[in-house]
């Protein structure tokens, strides 16, 4: 037993000496490999944590939002829909929401204007999200001027700024009073943006949604589960261009690795022959190759994964921000609560370490079974 361990340690010694003589090649391999794991790992950590974050945050979202569709687009709903919805059995409450978008040419960005139901700002005052404040360098009591639907400018005074911790949901919000909202957008007092409803029994949510769309055929209820599920699919890292890019990177890496690892040079074949001639068994030679692949891939995996963790959870995935941000001017500044799905870590491990090790071992197999006497004729 101690013999076996000593033997493996010796073989490991040789493997390391052997790796160290091709320092440049192996270090570049290690770096590229770590980079691949880093990108994949970052995408994985980011999407997993964001999914979880979204589901925790949106569990407080309205149970059901009822939109009105006109010509296939959503349109303000008439307020008399409220009563008709309230009259449906199982509906506890129905209220209208007032919100809309405003494009601010001065900043080149979109804001979401919204009328809060509880403590709305006074007329002429607004509460803005931290993203807007940062973007336009606004402080309390600053005055903002926006052009309303009819071309008349409205001045608003910044009454308060929403906390920076809440940017993930509030960066571009602009809270405004109902009167200002209607004046600004020219929305008739008999209409609202959409309706939120609560029901008595969660289990009946879908039944009630169906009832609503029967009763009011031009409406479309969106239930909370669908909102959460939207973010599940948004952060589904198996979908989307990011993954296409990553798979391309992965693919070229595999080709690169295969070429590096499998292209057993004449020199390497000679070495295998020498080892066999001086009494190494085929299995010992294969052990060398296995350790070689395992060492590079394991250490790259660890390095890549640890860096990915730091990247996503300590720097808020700053490298991904440009991709997610697109050309939006306001991008939330947020910290992601760490969340690791062990299953995905294992999958990543298997996807990276196993193919590389195999790519190292398999080609050496052929060489490892060469007749030792070939060495006599080198």
């Amino acid at each position, binding site marked *: 037993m101690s013999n076996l361990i000593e033997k493996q340690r*010796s073989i490991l010694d*040789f493997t390391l000496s052997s790796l160290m003589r*091709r320092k440049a090649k192996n270090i570049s391999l290690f770096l590229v490999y770590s980079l691949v794991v880093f990108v994949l790992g970052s995408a994985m950590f980011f999407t997993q944590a964001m999914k979880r974050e979204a589901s925790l945050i949106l569990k407080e979202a309205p149970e059901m939002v009822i939109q009105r569709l006109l010509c296939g687009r959503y349109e303000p709903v008439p307020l008399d829909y409220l009563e008709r919805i309230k009259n449906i059995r199982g509906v506890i409450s129905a209220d209208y929401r007032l919100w809309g978008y405003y494009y601010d040419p001065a900043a080149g960005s979109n804001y979401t204007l919204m009328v809060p139901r509880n403590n709305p700002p006074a007329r002429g005052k607004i509460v803005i999200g931290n993203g807007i404040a940062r973007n336009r360098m606004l402080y309390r009591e600053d005055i903002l001027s926006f052009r309303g639907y009819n071309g008349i400018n409205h001045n608003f005074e910044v009454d308060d700024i929403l906390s920076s911790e809440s940017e993930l949901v509030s960066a571009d919000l602009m809270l405004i009073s109902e009167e200002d909202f209607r004046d600004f957008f020219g929305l008739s007092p008999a209409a609202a943006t959409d309706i939120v409803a609560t029901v008595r029994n969660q289990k009946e949510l879908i039944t009630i949604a169906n009832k609503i769309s029967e009763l009011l055929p031009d409406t479309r209820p969106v239930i909370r589960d669908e909102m959460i599920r939207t973010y599940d699919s948004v952060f589904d890292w198996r979908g989307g261009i990011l993954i296409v890019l990553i798979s391309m990177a992965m693919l070229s890496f595999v080709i690169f690795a295969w070429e590096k690892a499998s292209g057993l040079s004449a020199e390497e074949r000679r070495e295998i022959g020498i080892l066999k001639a001086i009494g190494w068994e085929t299995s010992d030679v294969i052990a060398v190759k296995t350790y070689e692949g395992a060492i590079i891939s394991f250490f790259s995996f660890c390095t890549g994964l640890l860096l990915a963790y730091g990247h996503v959870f300590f720097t808020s995935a700053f490298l991904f921000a440009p991709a997610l941000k697109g050309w939006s001017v306001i991008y939330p500044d947020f910290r992601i609560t760490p969340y690791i799905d062990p299953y995905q870590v294992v999958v990543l491990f298997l996807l990276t370490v196993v193919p590389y090790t195999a790519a190292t071992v398999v080609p050496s197999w052929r060489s490892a079974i060469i007749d030792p006497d070939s*060495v006599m004729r080198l």
Partner: protein
Amino acid sequence: MIRLLDVRKGFNLAKPNEYIAVSGVTLTIEANRVTVFKGPSGSGKTTLLSLIGCMTRPTSGRIELMDNLPLINGILRDNGETNRLEVTSLPERFLTEIRRRLFGFIFQQFNLIKGITVLENIMLPSYPLGRKHGFVTERAHALIDTFGLGARASAKVEWLSGGEAQRVAIARALMNDPPVIIADEPTAHLDSKLSVEFMEIISGLKNQGKTIIIASHDPLVFEAGMIDRIINVRDGMLYGSGT
């Protein structure tokens, strides 16, 4: 004693380029002697050495080992033999085991592993045995001292001069303390001074009780004093043998 009985070795059998490199060799190699195979290029010397050293199997015939069998106890037990071992029918893994315990090889091109140190090259044959690291390094250092390589122990082998490389190759062959040393054209890459030195080393090994088998067409080798027996090889056959 190693005995070859009507040993034949052919390459590419049943193909147009079939070639019989060794045909019907019967031979006994005495223990603790220096035996030299002498013959022109292509006569089959190297092939004979690899047959004797269990590197390859003959096409037909038998090869029997009669000395130092306790070193390969495990194999003997498995075969029910006690005082001789017919090797040609053994599976590959036993041949490897025999190779690493009974034979030390010195190759024509030295065949050292480039990029790693003298010390590690010398230690390599001991790795599959799983011996204690301390014991192994100690033995390797002892060999390094014996061959005057002390200053070069941690040098990479490609920096060595021809003579130093040769001595590293010898030290490696001796690492597992095998009773038989096989050397193929050991002086081919050495000048005459180094060749003489090499033969002195061989003489020392003989005095330690090693069996030595050399293939060479270098007069410096087969005219050296410690040679016990010269076997002429031509076209895969033996022609007489003198002392």
